[in-house]
């Protein structure tokens, strides 16, 4: 229970300057802690600052103010090259648009983060093959991105995110460009990685049904965390559903029916947004 925080953010503010007099406040004083091995989802309306927050979590962007300790390392004052190395070793990104490198085979794409880390060729290839096997496309390792379906591309991207055994997997709407069924399969894959590899996962999504299957749901509105909800029950239900799946594969519909119920419960949770103390309470109850 008393696990270390992988992400530890305090008073994070992000402002953008758009012309001299104008400054927009996109992230307003966010405190966020994510424990090792946690599977968290971030939801919120479009423009609420989810991606901006994710860029800060992923060390792609620096906060305007606040402190951010990633896996025990304070990173807010790091130089660009150090941030590159942090991204390379600690973060695994999964994007909505897959972002595979064109003209590089699935294998080469998965090798890439390891190449930047200076890992030798043989180790690279072995690990890339293992990971592609893990995400279920071990039979397509030499395919080019344009020869893969959307779901397959996202699997390659997930394998690539895992390449350097990062502390966190950051996924920004990974199912946004996929149909709901394929999206579900991709989220199933995140659950599998979470369970088998023990990875910390932060999933940004618009899909409340998918969020309702994660351990904690964080709601963002206008650059602030307005709700944090421990979702242990929903997460357990999902796992039970998965177990049922593995026993009887025919019951595909069941978890979807259950999730409808959860999302309604979730809507009511939004009424409690105003309570700031709720945030800390919820967080501590998780895991």
């Amino acid at each position, binding site marked *: 229970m008393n696990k270390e925080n992988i992400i530890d953010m305090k008073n994070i503010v992000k402002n953008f300057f758009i012309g001299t007099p104008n400054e927009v406040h996109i992230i307003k004083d966010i405190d966020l802690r994510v424990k090792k091995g946690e599977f968290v989802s971030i939801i919120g309306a479009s423009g609420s600052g989810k991606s901006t927050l994710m860029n800060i979590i992923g060390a*792609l962007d620096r906060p305007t103010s606040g402190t951010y300790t990633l896996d025990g390392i304070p990173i807010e004052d790091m130089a660009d090259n150090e941030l590159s190395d*942090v991204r390379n070793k600690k973060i695994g990104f999964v*994007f909505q648009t897959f*972002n*595979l490198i064109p003209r590089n085979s699935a294998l080469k794409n998965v090798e890439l*983060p390891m190449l*930047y880390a200076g890992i030798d060729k043989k180790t690279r290839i072995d690990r890339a093959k293992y990971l592609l096997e893990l995400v279920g496309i071990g039979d397509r390792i030499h395919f080019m991105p344009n020869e893969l379906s959307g779901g397959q591309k996202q699997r390659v991207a997930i394998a690539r995110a895992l390449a350097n055994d990062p502390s966190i997997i950051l996924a920004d709407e990974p199912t946004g460009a996929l149909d709901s069924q394929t999206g579900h399969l991709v989220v199933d894959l995140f659950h599998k990685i979470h369970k088998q590899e023990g990875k910390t996962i932060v999933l940004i999504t618009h899909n409340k049904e998918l969020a309702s299957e994660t351990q904690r749901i964080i709601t963002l509105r206008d650059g602030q965390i307005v709700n944090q909800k421990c979702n242990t029950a929903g997460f357990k239900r999902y796992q039970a559903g998965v177990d049922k799946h593995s026993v009887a594969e025919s019951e595909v519909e069941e978890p979807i029916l259950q999730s409808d119920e959860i999302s309604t419960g979730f809507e009511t949770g939004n009424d409690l947004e105003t309570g700031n103390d709720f945030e800390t309470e919820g967080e501590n109850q998780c895991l």
Partner: protein
Amino acid sequence: MFIKENILLAIAGLKSNKMRSLLTMLGIIIGISSVIAIVSVGNSLTASFKTTMENFGASNIIIYVREKGAPSDGGGPPSFIGSGAATPSESDLLSDDQILAFEEHFADRIKTIGLVHNVGAAKVQDGHLYANVNVIGTNEGYKDTGNIKLTSGRYITEKDVKSSRKVVVVSSQLVSNLFAPNVDPIGKEIKAYGTDSIDTYMIVGVYKYEASSFGPAIASAKDTRTDFYIPVSVAKETSVNKNYQSLTVTSKIDVDTTKFTADIQTYMDKLYANNVKWEGSAMNMESTISTMTTFLNTISVGVAVIAAISLLVGGIGVMNIMLVSVTERTREIGTRKALGARSSYIKMQFIVEAVIICVIGGIIGVILGIILGAVGSAILKTAPSISVPIIIISVLFSMAIGIFFGYYPASKAANLDPIEALRYE
């Protein structure tokens, strides 16, 4: 560190866009190939000129009578002279007395004077054996001025000239046409059939015949027209003109030929001061060689300028295509940065790509240049010369162009903000 991966990536990129790659390389290809071609043609031409000119004798001074106002080009071997439309009258040419006076005037600097009186084409025949010749009256001095290399016997002497002996110095080509290999031709009599005369000469010497690279193409060595040297007095017997249109002077060792040529020119100007139509002109082979070299250098400079311009344009083309490539691949760059690529790596990736384009262009240019040089040499009938240092320099230079013109686009890529790059549509 990642150079090998980058090279493979760059080549894969070029392959996937063959037409664009080729067009991008065009400037480099043209630039490099023209440099290689001109250097190889220039080298072989210079080498060939030098040997030809040295055969004529570099220290010779040629004096010839030409029409006033004729273009004063670099001149050429004496046999080319007099092919103009106008024919000088006897009084316009140099007489034996004038030559004697000239020789006395410059006695301290003249070693020999070579005289030439062209008779014309003839055919030497003995039964079914024959040889084509060009009958030329010469004096003893011509042995030096004409750079005659005897293989056996002797050359025409003053005595032969004085007593108008019917003797001849023939080419090794003629000997092989008319005599069996084991027969000594010296002392043999041969018949020369001219347009309206048949003359019998006794061979006194044989010179080594070397095919001139500037001569007209000849079907076979057997039919080659070679020079047939007889005493100048004999040559003049049948001719109306007794005077000379040209003579060749060999200066003594230590004489400054350029200064001597100028002095002779002054002398000739005085001699022809009252002649309205003709003038005496003096030139030496050394200055001809330097004229030739200057000419070649001018061409080389011209081609170098063209090459430099096309390399510059080519380089800018590479820069342009790299900028396009950076824009096209903005998201890719953003992704690479998100995956942990340092800016220096991104920069190197694009520089390597630009260098690969330029080096491949350079190599194609080198190959094309060698082919063009070989074709050019074949047209000019000179031996092609390939300069390995120039090839190495060319490839290195293309590399440098790649680095120079790839640097800016690569920096642009390296300095992209990862978030902006990932957002790029």
